[in-house]
């Protein structure tokens, strides 16, 4: 059984690596379409044309596209994503700084989405066939129609401006300085024993995480509800009922374990998308994560950052997919036998 999972994860990684390779090629090609000169961008504004030409040769921009790609990917594999033309710093440092912030935010968002999604799905299933059903149904369509950045703005208006309950700018109040260790702020704050910093950081995360979570919860609700409805049409539920198993056990033991499977595969896709959702949410909350970095880079046409962050996003999505696949395998004996 464990061997099957290890094998399957191995197979997933073997599939993921070529995908990541193709992604890197695509990223490279798309961004070469850009009508800006990476060499000129990477230098001070007062550089002479000769200096720029020399830089072009140094950066390999006079070579063919496949050669340029080979040079670039060679450096990337050594952890060198080049230098940001805007920040004048190595890109890898910027990514290492911002990625943990985004991961913390998404992790919290995933918790919110999962709790809301599963609870909501169960509730929607519970009210099936009652007069509440159409209302709940309409409500879920309404919730589905609100993307995360609208929630983000709405929460700012409500909790930030109107009620003044929670902060909505930045990662930490100006009075604190951030402890440095792993880069994961919540973790570092606890590690140095600063509960106050931990709580302050958490308060700054509540609104963005809530916005992310609540935006991704409705689709989870709906899939759980419809999978539960499907499962309740299955023979084994009928047969278990005929064995005298109480309705409550039917739901919690027999139905839920089956209905969670399609829900889980949806969650895998959704959580990958959630990383994309952080983009605008981080901008709106001035949250110093990778999304903010990306949007800045796009505005400044800062190619090395866009490439690095793009690749990082792809890698994260593939990791999430692998984790979800592994979980799916643990929960689904049919696939486990096949693996």
């Amino acid at each position, binding site marked *: 059984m464990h061997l099957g999972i290890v*094998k399957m994860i*191995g*197979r997933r990684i073997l599939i993921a690596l070529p995908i990541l390779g193709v992604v890197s090629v695509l990223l490279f090609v798309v961004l070469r379409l850009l009508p800006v000169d990476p060499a000129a961008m990477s230098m001070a504004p007062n550089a002479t044309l000769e200096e720029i030409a020399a830089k072009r040769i140094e950066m390999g921009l006079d070579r063919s596209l496949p050669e340029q790609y080979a040079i670039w990917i060679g450096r990337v594999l050594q952890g060198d994503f080049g230098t940001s033309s805007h920040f004048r710093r190595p890109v890898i440092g910027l990514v290492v700084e911002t990625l943990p912030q985004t991961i913390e935010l998404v992790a919290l968002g995933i918790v919110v989405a999962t709790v809301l999604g599963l609870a909501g799905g169960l509730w929607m299933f519970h009210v099936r066939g009652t007069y509440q059903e159409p209302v709940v149904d309409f409500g879920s369509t309404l919730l589905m129609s609100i993307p995360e950045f609208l929630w983000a703005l709405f929460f700012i208006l409500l909790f930030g401006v109107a009620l003044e309950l929670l902060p909505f700018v930045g990662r930490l109040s100006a009075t604190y300085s951030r402890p440095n260790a792993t880069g994961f702020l919540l973790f570092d704050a606890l590690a140095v024993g600063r509960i106050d910093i931990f709580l302050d950081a958490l308060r700054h995360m509540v609104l963005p995480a809530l916005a992310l979570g609540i935006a991704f919860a409705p689709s989870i609700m709906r899939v759980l509800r419809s999978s539960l409805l499907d499962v309740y049409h*299955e*023979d*084994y539920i*009928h*047969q*278990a*009922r*005929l*064995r*005298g*198993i*109480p309705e409550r056990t039917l739901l919690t*033991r*027999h139905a839920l*374990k*089956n209905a969670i*499977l399609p829900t889980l595969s949806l969650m895998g896709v959704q959580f990958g998308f959630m990383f994309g959702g952080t983009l605008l949410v981080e901008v709106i909350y001035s949250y110093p994560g990778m999304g903010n970095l990306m949007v800045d880079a796009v505005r400044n046409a800062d190619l090395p950052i866009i490439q690095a962050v793009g690749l990082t996003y792809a890698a994260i999505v593939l990791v999430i997919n692998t984790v979800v696949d592994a979980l799916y395998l643990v*929960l*689904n*004996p*049919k696939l486990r*036998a096949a693996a």
Partner: protein
Amino acid sequence: MSLLVARGLTVSATIAGKTVQALRELDFALAPGRMMGLVGESGAGKSMIGRTIAQVLPPGFRVSGGSLTFDGRDLVTMDARSRRDLLGKDIAFIPQEPLSALNPVFTIGQQIDEHLARLGVCDRGERRERALAMFDAVHLPHGADLLTKYPHQLSGGMCQRVLIAMAFASRPRLVVADEPTTALDVTIQARIVQLIREMQEKSGTAVVFITHDLKLAAQICDEILVLYAGRPVERGPARTVFASPTHPYTRCLQLANPNLSGPRRALHSLPEQMPGLLGQLALDGCRFAPRCPLVEDACRRAEPPTVVTGADHAAACLRAASTASIAAPAIGTVPAGTGSGGPLVTVDAVTKRYALGGGFLSSRRHFDAVKGVSLAIARNEFVGVVGESGSGKSTLAKLIVGLETPTAGSIVMGGRDVTDGSRLARQARLDTVQMVFQDPQSALNPRRRVASIVTQAMEAGARATTWDERLARARELLREIGLPPETATRYPSQLSGGQRQRVNIARALCTTPKVLVADEIVSGLDVSVQAQLLNLLLRLRDEFGFSMLFISHDLSVVRYLCSRVLVMWRGEVVETGPTETVFANPQHPYTRMLLAAVPPDDPAAAWNPLDEVERLTA
């Protein structure tokens, strides 16, 4: 005292604003330890009885009259908690589809454990012991291994044994078995039915055995209750009901089933079909009257009373005394094909190999679905192919019509090998062969009207055809297959199962092919509809003259239709010859096992299904 008693039990529903009755004034009394066969075609209401016992009726249905008592307690008015206490303990159920009746995410062990825990076996180790003992009782070997297996790792027959073990675990007083063998292969069916009988006798349980097979019920049950359109039409001791039925419907049902031994007799085919829930509202009198060969005016006026026709034997019919006059004459053997002009289709040493699995982490294995099969179909000849699931008979059909390409061997039609995939080969196939598919639900495009479906071939032709031309041809085809012309503008969803299968056949006949390949085309149908179609095929052959490769798991149907038969087992033809010879004197152990699995035509005769063929060949 009787264990399960129904008195005037009526189950109703409201459909389209009208109150309809799925079960109507049902009376029976089942004594402890007895086995009652509940016989009827689909829609007769037989499954509704099981659902009424457990009070899990489909949405909208309710018990609207009468009573149903178990051990003197009314199951209908009983509160939900006490009823649930009975379920699984005193009343147990054996399902129709064993594979889907076990929860796929739990092991067999976990599911049995849960059941035993509910029965009050507190100690875990004791539950395990009990489970292993249960497996022994239902003859499941390697019990300890089985506990850790998931349902999908087991065959349908094994799952059904597990479910039977669970049903009898509590030594219940009543077991309801709802078509417990329909989804299984013939040879396994026989073993399962006998197992239920064995367990029933061992624990002295009363059994309600729901089935569409009158012969099977007569073989294993003590008494029989025949249902028609929600109404009980005949009840009595099993063998008496089978030997001398007193309701015309029972008699017709019996005569609609082809026999496997003795002289081949004509099939009695009832016209049309059983009325649906809404259709019954239009009938004032006997619900069988529109189809009854003995009908008289009085039958249509009021529902006939139940009359006693013998010891414990009763029928709801005014003409019960004349039932024996319905007869089906003996007819000769099936005419053989004509040899002149050589065979229409020649299959020579055809093999189809499939790759299994095959990733780079697992070694590539393969499996031969069809292995070196040869056959020839002569003009006007009906050739039968029998075998169980996995025997390769459906793959053979697909190879012949060109839905699959053989790995080796040749298929010759119209003088050329048609396996090379060329345009000429495709044309040769189009000129020679057409296929009738098993499941009309899947074979008829739900978005096309019947006229468009049956004349689909005209749409493919090079010459453009007008809708009027097609409509005319469609009417012609519909008349030939016995459907009213107004069917032409209907959609498949507006037709009954039997009508759909006729449309399915009509489409294949549109281009007047020389050979029809028919894959299990009557297996999903009720007996009376099956008889209609079998007779239709024989009539069509007389009228048009075509050959047919008729694939079926049902030996008696093959005997009725085909002059020659091929027995397939694990991709190979293990025996072939004239149908009468093969069935009368089978040579291969597998053929013998197939024949032995069919309940004998005479229910009084002993029925000894054989063990698995591996043991026989070893």
